[in-house]
């Protein structure tokens, strides 16, 4: 089974637009949305949730007021400023608590216990374009990388059951823990860039991360006609970096129209963006088969 991850570094360059269309073109791939902070692929693919499981990814400290002796040892041990005192009353700020347990260890009164907390959900949906597995991190929760790992584990399980040959993964922006978790185990990474200085800067950083995992690197340029000069600069950079260039997608209002209709652009439109995405998919499929 081949694992393909679509990433970008910079957000909003069109990852989900491409993955949604690839899902429609690939037929029988298991599709995974690893942008657990802000998952959007289900908006394009639609379908019906057939499984929803809670994700319990971390713990948080809880202080038992009855036992607390207000000595302050916990606040002193905490490196994340998660324990605050108002007079003799000690509080845990759950948004700052990383769940390390240092406070519980140092508490002389045994007043702190670590409680498991639910940080999100993992969904499996049947869509017209194949099975979709996606995660949803509750706002403000930690450990999105761990949730990404769980989402991928579930998706690999589904793919084995279905005998799917392709795991098509929508990554998240950035280069930090969720992106690293998305890339782990990936055979190939497709970077979606747009012609801007920001996107060029970001694609070099995310390519650096993808190289750590030995993934084959591909590039597609979205909205390439917005700045032909920068598009050229990005293509040159990609060639220098050993990234295989697959093609460009012109700016096309049909992409937003498809989003409004809740459908992949290759299904909803036969405009220039749809045609370009089909061309890119054809090349990518050929490369992956090699």
């Amino acid at each position, binding site marked *: 089974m081949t694992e393909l991850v679509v990433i970008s570094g910079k957000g909003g360059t069109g990852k989900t637009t491409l993955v949604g269309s690839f899902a429609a073109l690939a037929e029988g791939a298991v599709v995974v949305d690893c942008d657990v902070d802000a998952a959007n692929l289900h908006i394009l693919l639609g379908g019906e949730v057939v499984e929803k499981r809670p994700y319990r990814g971390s713990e948080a400290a*809880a202080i038992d007021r009855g036992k607390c002796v207000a000595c302050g040892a916990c606040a002193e041990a905490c490196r994340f400023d998660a324990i605050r005192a108002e007079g003799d009353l000690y509080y845990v700020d759950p948004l700052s608590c990383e769940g390390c347990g240092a406070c519980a260890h140092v508490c002389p009164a045994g007043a702190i216990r670590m409680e498991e907390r639910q940080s999100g959900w993992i969904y499996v949906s049947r869509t017209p374009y194949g099975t979709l597995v996606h995660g949803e991190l509750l706002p403000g929760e930690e450990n999105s990388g761990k949730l990404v790992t769980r989402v991928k584990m579930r998706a690999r399980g589904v793919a084995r059951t279905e005998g799917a040959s392709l795991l098509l993964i929508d990554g998240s922006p950035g280069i930090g823990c969720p992106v690293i978790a998305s890339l782990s185990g990936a055979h190939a990474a497709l970077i979606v860039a747009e012609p801007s200085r920001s996107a060029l800067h970001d694609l070099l950083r995310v390519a650096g991360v993808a190289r750590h995992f030995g993934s084959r690197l591909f590039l597609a340029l979205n909205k390439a006609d917005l700045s032909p000069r920068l598009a050229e600069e990005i293509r040159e950079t990609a060639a220098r970096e050993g990234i295989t260039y697959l093609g460009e997608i012109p700016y096309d209002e049909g992409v937003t129209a498809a989003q409004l209709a809740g459908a992949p652009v290759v299904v909803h439109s036969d405009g220039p963006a749809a045609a370009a995405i089909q061309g890119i998919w054809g090349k990518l499929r050929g490369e992956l088969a090699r």
Partner: protein
Amino acid sequence: MASPPAITAGIVDVNRVTPRPSRVTGGVRIAVASGKGGTGKTTVAVSLALSLSRYEGVQFLDCDVEEPNAHIFLSPAIEGSRPVEIPVPEIDLDRCTRCGACAKACRFGALAVIGDRVLFHPELCHGCGLCAMVCPVGAISEVPREIGRLEWGRAGPIRFGRGILAVGEPMATPIIRQLKREMSPDHLVILDAPPGTGCPVIETLKGVDFVLLVTEPTPFGLHDLRLALSVARELGIPAGAVINRYGIGDDSVERFLREEGIPVLLRIPMDRRIAAAYAEGIPLVSAFPEWEGRFRALYQGIASLAGAGR
């Protein structure tokens, strides 16, 4: 399909605390955030800073440490930098008895004892120090490990700072935490937040006076705006919205904001000339100076809303 998630913190109410510290003096602290990536956070944050810098002392902090971009638009002269380090365990193998207490205590799976070997995975370590506390023979000391850098300097009259996560490192939050310690008490501070709703966003938003949510009028924009707004509400921070690429999509973002009582403080139209200036790294207000007044009006809106929340 998925309804917006309810906020559930698995912790009893008595332990809850409102994390907003009260500050009576100093400039307003504004975080520019979005949920969805690529909606125009940096465009808005940079233009807001440039439009105000002639009238007020402005500090700009790029908190998108995974992919910082504001320097491309502000071209700051960097005056200094320093590494961001977290403390990680160093194990004295002569003293270590391989008892495994450290590995058992570590909740992040960063330590393992296998036979005679002690394995440490630095990228999993949060630097909490618990392993050193539990070691019965004092074999663990803590040493700094670099995970990124802070840089600071000036972009004209603007005080500039940014954090940079080293490529291959997973943890952005410690860098944002340290960058925010550089917040000037007597400047208007603009923080360019990372996309998303996870821990790096929370770290950026903690303790700010106002969050400016930049969105676009599309289904993806709406979905992620909803999530970003719930984060702002969880933190108890007043919020306003900027709609970018106004004119594409539909009016569902406007309707949502109206229903939620979130004012739209600025609309930036979809315009290829604006996109072209962005592509070249030219700030919106530099390419189109007529926008300066609109960004100053945006700030007036923020100041009145943030004042009401303070």
